[in-house]
């Protein structure tokens, strides 16, 4: 691949997904500077290991989310835990300026669908899922943080994820 095509491809990847990656990194790390560094790392890592990405096995977005979350958890574990601040109830309408309106609509619909599903969960289940997914915390750590029995926390996480799966399944991929 020439430098020109290489830059064009990473530009396209970045322009399409940077706001998604940065938004996820920011939610997990809670710090703009750290989220910026992480976003850069994610794109470079994905670019270097692009041969590992198989479109038949999931979307680019899922691939990027997996890498972003993994790298964010590494950082969270390095510097200590924080309870993630995911203001799911109200979120600012500050989406990116994508090239394609269709992409923007798809992204927004997906986000609304997931947020509605999360919002419909009982608060303790939602809290446990958020601490686990966005905070990179284990069930044991969550139990210690909340002062709840470990078994209760495990049950909340399971019920929360099952409910989320049911809601997403019932609404189908296309929303």
């Amino acid at each position, binding site marked *: 691949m020439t430098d020109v095509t290489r830059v064009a491809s990473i530009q396209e990847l970045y322009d399409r997904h940077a706001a998604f990656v940065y938004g996820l990194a920011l939610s997990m790390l809670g710090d703009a500077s750290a989220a910026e560094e992480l*976003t850069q790392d994610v794109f470079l890592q994905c670019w270097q290991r692009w041969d590992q990405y198989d479109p038949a096995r999931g979307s680019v977005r899922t691939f990027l989310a997996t890498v972003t979350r993994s790298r964010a958890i590494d950082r969270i574990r390095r510097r200590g835990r924080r309870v993630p601040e995911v203001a799911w109830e109200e979120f600012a309408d500050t989406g990116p300026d994508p090239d394609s309106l269709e992409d923007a609509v798809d992204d927004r619909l997906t986000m609304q669908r997931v947020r509605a599903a*999360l919002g419909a969960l009982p608060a303790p289940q939602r809290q446990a899922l958020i601490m686990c997914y966005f905070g990179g915390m284990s069930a044991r750590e969550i139990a210690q943080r909340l002062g709840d029995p470990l078994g209760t926390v495990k049950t909340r996480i399971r019920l929360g*994820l099952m409910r989320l799966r049911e809601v997403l399944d019932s609404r189908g991929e296309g929303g």
Partner: protein
Amino acid sequence: MDDLEHPSLEDLTLYALEADEPAEREALTLHLAECRSCRLALAGLLPAVDALAEAVPATPPPPELRDRVLAASLGEAQTRPRPPRRLFGFVGWAVALVAVAALVAVQVHMRQRLDASQAVLRRQRTVVQVLADPQSVSMLVQNRQLMAHAWARVFLRGSQAVMIMHRVPAAPPGQTYDIWWMRGNTAYRAGQWSGRKANDMLVLSSPWHGFTAVGVTLESPADSLPSGPIVMMGERPTAG
């Protein structure tokens, strides 16, 4: 968890979210290597886990980040501005040098421990991705005569390959287990395993497209070709 006991849905959920403890994770990984129904159950959970990433609003990063990413992707020096330095006297430098040396020593030690644990985490994540994919192909690698209770399983998923080791005896001192993609007399190294843990998992190199078997040899020291005895072997399943 023993080989016959299936994990609960709760256990699988925590595994999918990486919210379990290392010992639980190791036991469940071993079970997954042997249990297709649990692998399918895990695969059914992952879309909901992946969907959680969509819950946060997209937030445009600062515009200058784009230039940095593009520059770095071309291998150019990163252009992040550094804070200005202040000059200070000889004593200040001497104190600073001692402090820096001590700090570096501590950081190197911490960094090594951290790198090791992060490498384990990354390996575990790759293993989960491969195990949870219903399209992954599994092959049993064993030697009933030599190691009655030991087995290994290799899972292949596109260019990814992982190996799960179960009750494999420790390698003799000074030796390691080497894993090979094999066809007839041709072999390419797939990985190397210290053999210090009875149960372990490792990420192998991308499979050689022409391989028909996976072999495990004991080597001392590692050579570019297998020279030690083959202690475990598994045939590649035929297509269809």
